[in-house]
């Protein structure tokens, strides 16, 4: 009888831990739902100042401006609507960071309303689009589908 008892204790312990992990994960993931913002979402419901979030959208044409120090770049990100968010980034720009192309900026919103990016994720190659931006790229979506269709090359 006692042997059965121990096995039960083990099973219960394991279940409690796994369910605990599941609950923690669910709770944390729900707050992660607020992790990714489109410009219109950020304009409507801005995240707390300093909170680590991602902002994704298109780089507005003619908005890329390099500062005098040569490493700080200002640009404007647009989404589906009219909202725009100004972004400041210091660092080496991704190779495929160009106007009218998608970008995901990691960083936080500052008190003055600009988004201070610590990292920019742009396309690594012509086949890669940040997952959050699929469907956002309007005129580029077709090119993208075509590239994927005719090419099986990719990377591991």
């Amino acid at each position, binding site marked *: 009888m006692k042997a059965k008892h*121990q096995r039960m204790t083990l099973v219960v312990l394991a279940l409690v831990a796994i369910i605990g992990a599941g609950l*923690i994960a669910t709770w944390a993931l729900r707050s992660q739902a607020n992790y990714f913002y489109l410009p219109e979402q950020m304009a409507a419901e801005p995240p707390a100042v300093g909170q680590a979030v991602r902002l994704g959208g298109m780089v507005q044409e003619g908005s890329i401006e390099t500062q005098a120090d*040569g490493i700080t770049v200002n640009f404007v990100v647009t989404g589906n609507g009219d909202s725009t968010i100004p972004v400041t980034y210091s660092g080496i720009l991704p190779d495929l960071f160009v106007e009218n192309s998608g970008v*995901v900026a*990691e960083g936080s919103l500052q008190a003055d309303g600009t988004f201070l990016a610590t990292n920019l994720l742009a396309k690594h190659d012509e086949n890669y*689009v940040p997952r*959050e931006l699929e469907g956002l790229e309007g005129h580029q979506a077709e090119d993208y589908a075509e590239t994927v269709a005719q090419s099986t090359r990719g990377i591991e």
Partner: protein
Amino acid sequence: MIAELGLVALWLSAALAVLQMASGAMGLAGGDNARFAIYARPAAVVQAFLATLAFFLLLWAFAITDLSIKLVATNSHSAKPFIYKLTGTWGNHEGSMLLWVAVLALSGGLLAGLERRLPEKTMSATLGVQGFVALGFYAFLLLSSNPFERLPVPALEGSGLNPLLQDIGLAIHPPTLYVGYVGLSVAFSLCMGALITKQVTPDFAKVMRPWVLGAWVFLTFGITAGSYWAYYELGWGGWWFWDPVENASLMPWLAATALLHSVSVLAARDALRTWTIMLGVLAFSMSMLGTFLVRSGVLTSVHAFAVDPERGTFILILLGLYIGGALGVFALRAGSIAEGKRFTATSREGALVFNNVMLSAILAIVLLGTLYPLLTEAFDVRVSVGPPYFNPAGAIFAIPMFLVMAVGPLLRWKDDKPARIQFELAMLAAVVIAVCALVAILGDYSILSVLGLALAIGLGIAAFLPLRGRNLRRVPTATWGMVMAHFGVAVALFGMACETAFTSEKLAAVAPGGVEEVAGWTIELESVDPVAGPNWTAVEARIFASRDGGERIELNPQARNFWSPSQATSESALVTRWDGQLYAVIGDQAGVDANGNTRWQLRVWWKPFVTFIWYGGLLIAFGGVLSIVGRIRVDLKRRNAKALGDARREDMDALKGDSVSGGGPVPEPAE
């Protein structure tokens, strides 16, 4: 001819897998059918030979750049350096699946050819399951991803291989991970065999242990190599990105780590029988899930090949079939497996169970975080899950795990009193608290890196405590393996915490002749020049770095542009010192300075002890190797002793003539 030969070899392998499966099932049925069981072993061995042959034929086709084969034409290029032509064989979907299948067949062949310790019935069931698993993958390869497909008209030139993959990292990283994934398939088959024939015994655990250890060593090594590759190749200076595909390799590792410890308990103490089987199923499920995530294209990540729903569905069906089947057998048989030996909470088994549960919980955290974006996508909500989720949620379970890991090996099997090791406990607690306090006073660092640093130092000391008071020359090799692996965890953790807490970074636009300072290093940009490689052009910086006025070291980071396919990459330059690495990348032109000289973006990091992350990974893998060597030596000794005992018994019998022999039990050397 090569392609046709390869295809024939694959079809024959698939046929042999059917024979192996049927023969294994016959062996299980017993009675008159049992005589068919003899075909399972040869079927597995010949299959291993054929599948490996198929892989080498594809390798040959890539080596000679046979452009009449579609796969070669789409993934290779005649101008590519020879080594990357070879590694390009598995730098694509079909080729990597063929590699996977070849390794699967090879390990099945090894199991069939070498393993003699299991009861015949269990072996039949195991080989049958292994044949079933292999058959699914042959079907996948032959029906939806034929690597040997010919083009109607041979291409004039291949379209090349992604430049990020033109690196020696690709030669190492995927094959080692695959060996790890596939080694877990053998553990899975053994678990199923033991479960079907109700032979979940310490002997079965001893048979399974080297397979789990081997798979785990390869996974550890593959993850370590992949992390270092991403670190220097992507030019971001990060070593872990919580990318879904990285997670896909981490999850089987977590499950295999848990399985490894629980199978040791089963082998040594005959406890945790059902738990071990469950983990065996879980570990292979995670391998399959990893394959699904990477191969199906559901993830648009750097790793995904092409979006192809057919392939994804195929792997998902295989996953459902194997895991559903395994859980079904588990549900039917789990009740009939007797409870193992008992133990108290404060025993080595207790500590191992606790950490098994913690590992499973971390696995659950990683799994949910990886799948969550896919789930929400179904409802058209795009979410990205990153370090702000994984780090704290994982740490909730990792911190108690590390604490118990420090103490567990000091406890005795079955039952122990914590008071016996109170000196060690007090010392470790003092070390951890002291380091925490010291680091927190010295600077303002994130709580996780402070805790990580303290735990790493505590663990580093604790790893060697099991050796205290023992004659070092008589400590079994397997115990040295455990000490090494645990010390490796401490070393890796130390590297991670140091990198997170103490990295210094310098980012500037510098004209040739300009000088920058970072963490005691003086960086001088001498010149920036164009250079060309076999299939790329680049701008290359000549940088001289010196530490505290010491020797000047030349660094040459490049910004490369490949032309087939067209893509830009950043080649970092590294200076390794015992206490860290200097990491430099060159960016774009950044205007001109006051004197009209062109400026270039330069980004330099000093990352203290970052190399310890990978040294730690290597130590962990090395610990696993030591453990395998130790186990196999003990096993060989036992076989010799048994053979000797048998021979002596025969002699005795011969001497006694017709009289009945005693034939007492053969003495076996201790574990």
